[in-house]
């Protein structure tokens, strides 16, 4: 980094700490900032600080939010007794974009992963239990990713939630739209055949 003046060198170093940003891209970003009007740098610096200062976890659903509780948890129209359990904030965003779900969420903040040292007590499971009565939850939708860890977590939760008078469902697993059977792995294909649905319903 010796070829750059120290302040520019520091900016390159900061950018290169971002995921997926190599040294070359960091240089390009830093030079872009340097050549841009001052407002861009000011706006960027302020947004970076805002994110660190204002964003916190919703104390009810554990989603990222500016206000606590978050807008979804305070929206009475979404209090329909259905709770969608997901791994992280990115998953909530994806489901919201689809517009297919109008209930509330519970974000576990991860999945059970012994290899990474993540156990039951590291997830927001006890908080999930305490919401059941308070919000008169009737149905839990487990929308965890179909990874080994995600599925094992779903089966753990299913056992754990059994016998509480809840309907527990899991999002379906199968062939993606626009997919091609030739390229689908055997496990997915088997599951989609096992879970096939009648055409006249």
């Amino acid at each position, binding site marked *: 980094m010796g070829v750059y003046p120290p302040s520019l060198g520091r900016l390159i170093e900061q950018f290169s700490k971002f995921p997926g940003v190599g040294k070359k891209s960091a240089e390009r970003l830093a030079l872009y900032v340097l050549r841009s009007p001052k407002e861009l740098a000011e706006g960027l610096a302020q947004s970076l600080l805002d994110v660190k200062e204002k964003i916190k976890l919703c104390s009810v659903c554990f989603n990222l939010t500016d206000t606590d509780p978050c807008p979804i948890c305070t929206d009475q129209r979404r209090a329909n007794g259905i709770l969608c359990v997901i791994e992280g904030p990115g998953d909530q965003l994806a489901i919201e974009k689809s517009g297919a779900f109008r209930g509330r969420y519970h974000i576990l903040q991860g999945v059970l992963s012994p290899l990474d040292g993540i156990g039951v007590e590291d997830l927001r499971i006890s908080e999930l239990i305490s919401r059941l009565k308070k919000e008169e939850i009737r149905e839990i939708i487990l929308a965890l990713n179909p990874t*080994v860890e995600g599925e094992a977590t779903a089966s753990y939760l299913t056992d754990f939630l059994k016998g509480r008078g809840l309907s527990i469902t899991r999002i379906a697993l199968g062939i993606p739209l626009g997919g091609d059977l030739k390229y689908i792995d055997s496990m997915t294909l088997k599951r989609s055949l096992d879970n096939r649905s009648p055409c006249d319903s």
Partner: protein
Amino acid sequence: MEPKKTEAIILRTRDLGESDLLVTFFSSLYGNLKGVAKGARRSSKRFANSLSTFSLVDLQSRERRSGDLVLLESCELLDGFPGIRSDYNLLLRASYMVEMTETLFPSNVPSFEMFQLLRFALEAISKRQNVDESMISFQARAMKIGGFGINLSRCSRCGRQYKGEGRALFHPPSGSIVCLACEKESVMTPGMGPDTVSALHRVQSSERPLSNRLECSDNAVSELKAVLTSHIEHCLGKKLKSAKYLHPIRFQ
């Protein structure tokens, strides 16, 4: 450079950049390796979702000009051990097996024996065949293959030969048995009856990759658990991360 084709078990995966996957696997021919699966998270065509933890796969890789990472070219799923996905207790055990394999065989140390052991142990627990006994057998065999077999023939203190009469004690610092004349039975030096010693001997010297029937009493099974736990903790220097979660269900 020539592509390498080998069977392997996926030990770990981690997201890399926007669309790649960093994959750690234990291969039958080359041991523990790390590789990059380019575009694996974006398109499912080339890797067909075969790169999940614990999966047995057939994979083709190519060495890169620099660095230790290989480039994964294609991968086909042979067995996803679906049972492990449907039970957290099995996930815990499978994770423990993977962690032990990684610790005993860090990288580029091939061991076909270890590969076979891991493969058959994952298969056994996925099918719920004698889960407890498969686990014990895995622990004892893995230590033996890794060069940490327990010496069952003579007392490491006085050298007296153990011929199967009376109890023997396990002495973790020497990785060997000691006789009752040299040491007292305690948590530090757990005891074993004659049938425990012979069951351990059978597992350690078996010709089969995994013996998931120990053919000994329940009491011998609990003695084996205690001995192997202290042996593994002593040899591997640290507690395995996944052992922490295994503990409450280990003595169920």
